[in-house]
């Protein structure tokens, strides 16, 4: 019984961590190498890793969607491909409506290997090639060089707020255990 509880606890921890890792913004210093649109078939198995239907995305009769992509190269030479889709008022709560503007900015910052323009790309999500999922780009900003890594303060702020909420709920539960239960046992009032 003890080991069952340990396994369930570890699985729950991994689940919470993965959820936060997927949803919270992450920042990466990259160089934009290409921007384009591509008709993309969204497999139903991976549809939760793409924009929800109610954000105003349009699909054709074959179920394909015209998705904006941003190809980038990291300072170590490995590539990273972003999708650029609106999230609208649906999960995750980024309320992003400016994907056309973001695509224009990325195209403007496109650069070659010889004359690189380094940018920091804020995004959420995972690149999983076997499921064809891409991180969704949120914003783009120029940085001085490939070694500059701006602080990811939005994710820190969200984590801090979540910790405060957790502490508050902990306190509320403790107060209920201490007083609410005994009051119920006494029979009201």
């Amino acid at each position, binding site marked *: 019984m003890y080991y069952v509880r340990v396994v369930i606890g570890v699985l729950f921890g991994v689940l919470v961590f993965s959820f936060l890792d997927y949803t919270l913004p992450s920042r990466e210093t990259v160089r934009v190498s290409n921007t384009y649109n591509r008709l993309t078939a969204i497999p139903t198995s991976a549809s939760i890793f793409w924009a*929800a239907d*109610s*954000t105003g995305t349009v699909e054709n009769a074959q179920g394909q969607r015209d998705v904006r992509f941003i190809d980038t190269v990291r300072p170590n030479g490995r590539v990273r491909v972003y999708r650029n889709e609106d999230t*609208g*008022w*649906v999960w995750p*709560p*980024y*309320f*992003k*409506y*400016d994907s056309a*503007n973001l695509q224009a*900015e990325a195209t403007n910052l496109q650069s070659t290997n010889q004359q690189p323009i380094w940018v920091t790309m804020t995004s959420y999500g995972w690149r999983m090639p076997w499921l064809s999922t891409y991180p969704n780009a*949120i*914003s783009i900003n120029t940085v001085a060089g490939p070694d500059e890594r701006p602080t990811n303060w*939005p994710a820190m702020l969200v984590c801090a707020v979540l910790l405060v909420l957790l502490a508050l709920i902990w*306190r*509320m539960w403790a*107060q*209920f255990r201490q*007083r*609410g239960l005994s009051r119920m046992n006494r029979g009201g009032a």
Partner: protein
Amino acid sequence: MALIRLWLFLLAGQLVFYVLLRLYVRSQQVERLERRWDARHPHRSGNTAARRAFVAKAMTGFNRSLRARLTLLVFVLPTLAVLAIVILVNWQ
């Protein structure tokens, strides 16, 4: 439609949290008053009728106190957070 759905979910969550937070703040205040009574009347401490009367009397104006009114922020702060995210994400 998506905006209405978001608003409904937000409102439902806020209502549940408001009720729980309200109960918590009230319970804390009652506990504080009971401690005060016990400190003032060491020979009559414990759950007596006199202490219950004192707590009931002291709690009458609680809904108008600053502490109780601050719990209404539950309905304000999430909306402000949504507005801040909308501005930060969509601002060039």
